């Protein structure tokens, strides 16, 4: 059988082909999961484990307003943290593909150049949806409850919006550092960045300047908005940023996406320099 490359003007439009190629690249990750289901299981189990450790070991030591259980506060914080963990998942995948030559293989083929980034985005969003679903189930199991469904859906939407914005930060950092070893450094920084927020404790309990930094952490806006929309009690706080949690949970990710999507696309196009 002799196979010639199909003609340039196929039945698919350019956009259609770009989307089809993007999906083909994303499917590669789904096949990875099917080949190595344990990786997916452990990936989803990690935030669940952290949640149980914090909830049962540290939870008793935290004063929770309105007499609610600590899990009621912890869960929206952990949902936000899980979105943050997605950052290293993305960066790891991007650096691994670059280091192993998979990115170059794709770039030498007649596929839509955008497919590499689109595929990464689709696969990582699906992965985060799975992780979030596992953690929501864990939350329900330990007694956390959202007050109503539309609010819960909006909260999940905002969490995934944050994840989507961090995706481009992850792609940018992956293209920038290139070296898979560098990802370890990022992983080390992820926890402090996550802790420097309202996810686990009230920023008002931190030293003044540190509390302000924590309140302006984009993760705090998403977590505060999620608490509000889930109908769970929040830490309150009278600052402007704390009082505009929902609009800021939309604004931050849009800003991050605008900046880092542009940077990522530019860096990707410049791989040939």
């Amino acid at each position, binding site marked *: 059988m002799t196979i010639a490359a199909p003609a340039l003007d*196929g039945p698919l439009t350019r956009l259609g082909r770009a989307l089809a190629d993007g999906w*083909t690249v994303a499917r590669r990750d789904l096949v990875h999961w099917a080949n190595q289901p344990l990786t997916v299981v452990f990936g989803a189990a990690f935030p669940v484990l952290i949640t149980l450790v914090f909830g049962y070991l540290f939870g008793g030591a935290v004063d929770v307003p309105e007499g609610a259980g600590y899990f009621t506060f912890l869960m929206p914080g952990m949902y936000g943290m899980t979105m943050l963990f997605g950052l290293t998942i993305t960066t790891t995948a991007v650096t691994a593909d670059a280091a192993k*030559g998979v990115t170059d293989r794709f770039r030498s083929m007649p596929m839509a150049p955008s497919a590499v980034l689109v595929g990464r985005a689709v696969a990582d969003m699906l992965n985060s949806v799975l992780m979030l679903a596992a953690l929501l189930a864990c939350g329900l199991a330990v007694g956390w409850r959202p007050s109503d469904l539309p609010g819960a859906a909006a909260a999940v939407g905002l969490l995934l919006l944050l994840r989507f914005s961090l995706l481009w930060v992850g792609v940018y950092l992956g293209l920038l550092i290139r070296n898979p070893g560098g990802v370890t450094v990022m992983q080390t920084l992820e926890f402090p960045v996550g802790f420097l927020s309202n996810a686990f404790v009230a920023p008002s309990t931190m030293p003044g300047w540190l509390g302000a930094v924590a309140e302006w952490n984009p993760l705090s806006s998403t977590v505060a908005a999620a608490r509000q929309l889930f109908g769970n009690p929040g830490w309150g706080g009278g600052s402007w940023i704390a009082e505009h949690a929902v609009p800021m949970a939309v604004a931050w990710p849009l800003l991050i996406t605008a900046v880092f999507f542009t940077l990522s696309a530019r860096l990707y196009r410049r791989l040939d320099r």
Partner: protein
Amino acid sequence: MLVARGLRKTYGKHTALQGIDLDVGRGAVCGLLGPNGAGKTTAVRILTTLLRPTAGRASVAGYDVVTQASQVRRSIGLVGQHAAVDELLTGRQNLELFGRLHHLGAARARARAAELLERFGLDHDGPAGEYSGGMRRRLDLAAGMIVDPPVLFLDEPTTGLDPRSRAEIWDRVRELVSDGTTVLLTTQYLEEADRLADRVCVVDRGRVVAEGTPGELKAELGGDRLDLVVLDGERLAEAAAIAAGAASGPVETDPHTRRVSAPVAGPKGAGGVRVRVLTEVLAALADAGVEVEDVALRRPTLDEVFLTLTGGGAADAARERAGSPERTEEGVR
């Protein structure tokens, strides 16, 4: 099929390619021979659209590599250390993925993957990361051949492979060439260029330092060498003098290994001359009563090729490679 003119690539102050010209006709195999860091891979990356040249132009299958990159990508296959397969996918999953990305459609991609798996003997279900070196390289080769590309780039296709796997890859490449595929091959091994290429460009420090058929190059390089190891180190000088009588150039001696190495160039195409020289020298040594422990007639190693071509300019590279087990030697023990 492949033309390059004054191809340059600089990274800041570092110059990877200093202006390379190439002409490879349809169905020909051109070998780029050079040590690590010579610029071979940079050249391949430019010709496969992965890298933009700083200056100069190149076309592959009639398309400009910068302005018509997507047409070039439809005409090439890339096999090499830098364009790998996905290690978490099986061979079949990899080939199906690449077939889909070549827009063959799901059914044809599946059929093509099955065909290539059989042809390259890759019927194995584990992830590609667990393949042996030879299998892995055959999978790379198959991945570069999804659409029977008119031009195939082989970037060091056998580096790090054991001799048997290397011979296997060479057989596959010869099959492709006999089907009319145009090939640009990069290699560190003189022997590989010798076996596969019609023409060889010797690359060093970003420029082509010699070009010709393998036969022409070898003749130019002073031909073969006669190596002798004498039993008694005291008689090394005596043996060197006898070898010098038959040598075509300066004779080198090494007291540590009690080795004498003499270039023995014959006229072009006179393969018998070197063997005659060998018998003459051995006879003369026997007459003088110098006992010989080991004798070998061999082609020059890549180190010697570079030393000759660059007048010692690539001595660093050669020193780095000295003692590497991958030398091209035909020993007579």
